């Protein structure tokens, strides 16, 4: 493996992505909304308790409708604390996974399909890199930043959540074990999922927009998790996130195995 060449492609792709506002802006704005604005707003959640027409107005009923495991984890907290923990620890957990997914998809779409669109792929194919090196470099170009954004985001979220909830909680309550697993085990797998699907789509797509839009389908599993938790069908706990991570990793490996088999210079060159 020629690591110098792999690093060169990663360096090139990251530089190009960072120069593209259409690609880099969502990577800044979305994390700020999910990791700063939402948890900061959550600080006001206890105030909603007295407002009629919100789920929090009848918090007891709402909690009563949730799975028993979640009820047990909230036991011992007063109502305001329950609300904060419910929102910051559980409701926003699946939203956090959108970050690595989005970053990986955006960069992968730009790195694979965008390169075709900009007509820079041909020069790259004429270099002595092997197909495997090119494929790995392209994967790392999208996966490493997704991981970086997810982990930095996790640290940022931890700080904002504790600060925002301090008046209610009076202690550092975040992250718990489930979130640590989410960040270290699930987020990289979710990034791999976004990356894998976008790579498969990008091989056939002619441009960034087409690849990104087709690849957006991968957000569906995450949306299902958000809805499932909001409606009380399921809730995130340590075992579930471990299992989810495993499931995502298996899907990643299958997609990347297939992608690696189909990523051939000769296939790409016929599309130029």
């Amino acid at each position, binding site marked *: 493996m020629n690591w110098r060449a792999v690093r060169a492609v990663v360096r090139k792709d990251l530089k190009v992505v960072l120069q593209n506002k259409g690609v880099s802006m969502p990577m800044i704005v979305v994390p700020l909304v999910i990791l700063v604005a939402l948890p900061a707003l959550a600080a006001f959640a206890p105030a909603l308790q007295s407002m009629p027409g919100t789920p929090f107005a009848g918090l007891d009923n709402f909690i009563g409708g949730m799975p028993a495991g979640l009820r047990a984890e909230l036991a011992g907290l007063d109502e305001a604390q329950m609300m904060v923990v419910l929102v910051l620890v559980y409701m926003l957990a699946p939203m956090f996974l959108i970050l690595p997914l989005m970053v990986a998809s955006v960069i992968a779409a730009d790195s694979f399909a965008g390169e075709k669109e900009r007509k820079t792929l041909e*020069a790259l194919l004429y270099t*002595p890199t092997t197909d495997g090196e090119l494929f790995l470099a392209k994967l790392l170009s999208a996966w490493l930043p997704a991981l970086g954004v997810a982990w930095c985001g996790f640290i940022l979220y931890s700080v904002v959540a504790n600060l925002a909830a301090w008046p209610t909680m009076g202690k550092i309550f975040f992250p718990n074990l489930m979130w640590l697993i989410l960040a270290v085990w699930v987020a990289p797998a979710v990034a791999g999922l976004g990356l894998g699907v976008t790579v498969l789509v990008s091989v056939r797509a002619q441009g960034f927009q087409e690849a990104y839009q087709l690849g957006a389908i991968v957000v569906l599993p995450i949306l299902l998790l958000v809805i499932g938790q909001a409606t009380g069908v399921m809730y995130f706990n340590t075992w579930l996130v471990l299992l989810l991570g495993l499931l995502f990793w298996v899907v990643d490996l299958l997609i990347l195995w297939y992608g690696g088999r189909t990523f051939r210079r000769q296939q790409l*060159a016929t599309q130029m």
Partner: protein
Amino acid sequence: MNSDPVIAVDGLTRRFGDVVAVDGLTLEIYPGEVFGFLGHNGAGKTTTVRLLNGLLAPDGGTVRVLDLEPLNDGPALRRHTGVLTETPSLDERLTGRENLEIYADLYGVPRTEVASRIESLLEGFELAHRADEKAGTYSKGMKQRLALARALLHEPDILFLDEPTSSLDPVGARRVHELITRLSQEQQRTVLLCTHNLAEAQKLCGRVAVLEQGRLVALGTPAELARRLGRSQRLEIDVAPEHVPAALEVLEARLGVTDPAQENGTITVIGAERETIPDLVTLLVGAGVRIYGITPQEPSLEDVYFALHGEEVRG
């Protein structure tokens, strides 16, 4: 040719669906040659370059480049080939220098030499003053020069140039011509030149291959091709316009030339050799024709090209 060919192609064929892009191509190219690939758009030139570099798999035939098989030995082969693609294929969001630095790493240029080679190429192609600006801000000619610098960065043994001077001004084009000649003659590097510019091909190429719809329709030196096609030397006789009829009469009566091409007092006699000029002058002067000049013309590659494509030869 004394040495072994650096490129040996036998019956090379490549199809895209029902379209045969390269159809049974057979040729050999030798070290230090500047070899021209001529043909209309879609003739198969670019596809051939891709096949020779292992970017496409052939449907038939065999290819050996530097004694390597491009499809199976692609990475090893591409260390020794440099390609200037039809479009510059630059990362326009990166600076000129960054473009070269990244490709130096991709081509495995020794780390200790990267900076000096890049500096030398930037100087040589007159890009040093804009090296740290984004390539997207460059003019077409500058982009072309940067792409050419990138193709030369790893000092390839074989250089594939697809329309290298298409975006260059006359001065830039002349420098590229000098560079090609120097690479070939002084450094024994092989250059495969794909071009529509027939004058450029005639000036630079020792041999040319003319492709039509993927088939090789002619191969050889421009002079060989002209002979094979019966295109011989011609004379351009410049006479006073009012004396053209008298000159035509002499040419028909004494040389058997009927209906030669003529334009503004210039009569073109095809098939007349340089040695006939003294007698011709004597005859024309004897007939009272005022002669301003007689110029022998070698058959041009343009003549050959148009003859091969069944089109009217100009002049």
